[in-house]
C-alpha cells in the first residue's frame, strides 16, 4: 500500500492574506506578456504551415509525363462514405499512345465538396495513386454548384506529383517481354 504523505500547509502570512503581493506578481506576468511575440497569424496575408500528411481537398494528379493517372476503376466512388464522388467512365482518347495499356479513362469526375468529409479513403483505396488529399484547405463558393469540383478543376488543383512506380511503363515493358499480367 502506497504511503500517503499529508502535506502540512503553512498558514498564510499577513502579506499573503491581503493577496496584494500575488496581484503584483500577476500584473508583472501580464505586463511582460505584452512584449512577447504574438502567436496569432494574420491569416489572409500569412498562411499557416501545412504539414506533409495533411488531408486537404481531394484532387486528381497527373504523372510526370503529363498523363492523367485515373483509370476510372470507381473504387473511390464505392468507398466514399458520404457518396461525394461521382465518376462517369469513358474510353482513353485514341491519339494518346502513351496510355495504350489502360482500358478506361474518366469522362467526368465530380467531387461534391459539400458532401466530402476529408476522410482520405479515396486516396487510400486508389490503386493508381491518382487521387490525393493535398494541402489545399480553403474552398469556398457562392452557390452549391460551385462547390462541386469537376474533372478539370480537380486536375488543376492536383497538378503533377512525382511517381515512384510508373506502373503503366512497367506493364508495357512486361508485355513487350511476353508476360503481360
Amino acid at each position: 500500500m502506497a504511503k500517503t504523505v499529508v502535506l502540512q500547509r503553512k498558514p498564510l502570512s499577513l502579506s499573503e492574506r491581503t493577496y496584494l503581493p500575488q496581484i503584483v506578481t500577476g500584473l508583472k506576468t501580464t505586463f511582460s506578456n505584452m512584449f512577447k511575440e504574438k502567436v496569432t497569424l494574420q491569416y489572409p496575408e500569412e498562411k499557416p504551415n501545412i504539414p506533409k500528411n495533411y488531408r486537404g481537398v481531394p484532387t486528381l494528379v497527373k504523372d510526370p509525363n503529363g498523363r492523367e493517372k485515373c483509370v476510372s476503376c470507381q473504387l473511390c466512388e464505392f468507398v466514399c462514405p458520404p457518396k461525394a464522388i461521382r465518376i462517369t467512365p469513358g474510353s482513353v482518347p485514341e491519339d494518346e499512345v502513351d496510355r495504350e495499356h489502360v482500358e478506361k479513362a474518366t469522362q467526368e469526375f465530380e467531387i461534391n465538396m459539400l458532401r466530402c468529409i476529408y476522410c482520405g479513403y479515396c486516396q487510400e483505396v486508389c490503386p493508381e495513386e491518382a487521387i490525393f488529399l493535398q494541402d489545399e484547405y480553403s474552398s469556398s463558393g457562392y452557390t452549391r454548384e460551385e462547390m462541386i469540383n469537376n474533372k478539370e478543376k480537380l486536375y488543376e488543383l492536383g497538378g503533377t506529383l512525382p511517381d515512384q512506380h510508373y506502373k503503366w511503363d512497367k506493364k508495357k515493358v512486361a508485355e513487350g517481354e511476353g508476360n503481360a499480367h
Partner: protein
Amino acid sequence: MFDVELLLMIGLKVLFALLMIGAVMTMAGYSVLAERKVSAWMQGRVGPNRTVLPLVGSLPFVGRFLKGLGIFQPLADGLKFLFKEEMIPGHVNKFYYNLAPIVALVPALTTMTVLPFGEFFTENGESIPLMLANLEVGILFVLAVSSLGVYGIVLAGWSSNSKYPFLGGIRSSAQMISYELAMGLSLLPVFLWVSEPGTGAMGLSLVDIVNSQSQNAWLLLVQPLSALIFLIALFAETNRLPFDMPESETDLVGGFHTEYGGFKFGIFFVAEYAHIVVGSAIFTIVFLGGWHFLPWMADPWPATWIGSLIGVGWFLAKTIFLIFFFIWVRWTLPRFRYDQVMNLGWTKLLPLALLNLIFYVLLVTWLDQPPA
C-alpha cells in the same frame, strides 16, 4: 434688452461643455480600443488592425501605422451601433427600458463638470483652474452624482423583466452600496489632511487638493492606505473586473444589458468607459498630484500658456496611465464570487477605512495642536 456679456458667457460655457463632452467621449471610445488592444497584447494576439479610412490609409507610412494600431476601429464600432436595428423585446417595461441607458450615461457626463484638468496663468501670474464649474464641494458632488450611475444599471436589470439582467441589477446595487461607504470613508482622511489650519485649503474643493500637492508629497505617498481603499472601491464603483458583478458574462450571459442591443447597448458600453475615464481623472486629482509635475518638485514648465498646455498634457498622461492600469488589472485577475465581493467590502474594506480614518483624525489632531 439683452445682456450681451451674459449671453457671451453662456455661449462660451456651452462651447466649453461641448468640447469637454467631446474630449471625454473620445477618451471613452478610445479606452474601448485600448481595452481591446491591451487585452490582445497580453494574450499574445495582435488586436484590431484592419479598419481604415480610405484617404488616411493610403498615406505612405503613417497610414499603415495607424491601421495597425486600429485607430479607426472606434469609428467603425460606433457606426455599427448606430445602424443596427433598435430591438425592444416584447416583455420589457418600455419606459424604464428606454430610460436606463440615459440614466447610466448622464452621471458619467455630469461629474466631469467639476473636474479640474489644468491651470491657466493670467498676465499677473495668477493661476485659474481649467474646469467647467469650480464647485467648493467638488468631491462631494462627484461622489453624489457618480453613485447615481447605478440607477441606470438597476433600472436596466429590473425593466428587462428577465432573470439574468435582474440578477445583474441586484448584484450591482448590493455592490454599489457596499463600496460607496468605503469609498467615502477613504476620502475623508485625505481632506482632513489637506484642510489643516493655516494652509488656506479648506473644504472639499478639488482644485485646492491638487494645489496642496504642488511642490509637496503626493497624497498617494502620504496616505497609501486611503489610496488603496479608494482604488479598490473605484474598481467596484466602475464595475470593472475583478468586481464586474453586474455584467459577469460568464455566469449572467450579459448581466444587466442582456436584453439590450444596438445603440442602447452602445450607450451602456460608453457609459462604463466614461465612468472609468472620470474615475481615473479623480484618482489623479486626489492622489497623483493632478497636473503638477512630480512629488516635491516644482513644475519645470513656465507659467505661461505653454506651461498650462504641458500641465494639461501631464494630467492626461497620468489619467491615461490609470486607464491602462484598469485594463491591465482586468486582464490579470479573475472575477470575485458574489459572496467574496460582499465579504471583502463589508468585513475588510469598511473596517479598514474606518481605522484609517480614526488614525488620521488622531494624527492630524496631534499635528495641528497649537503650540502651548
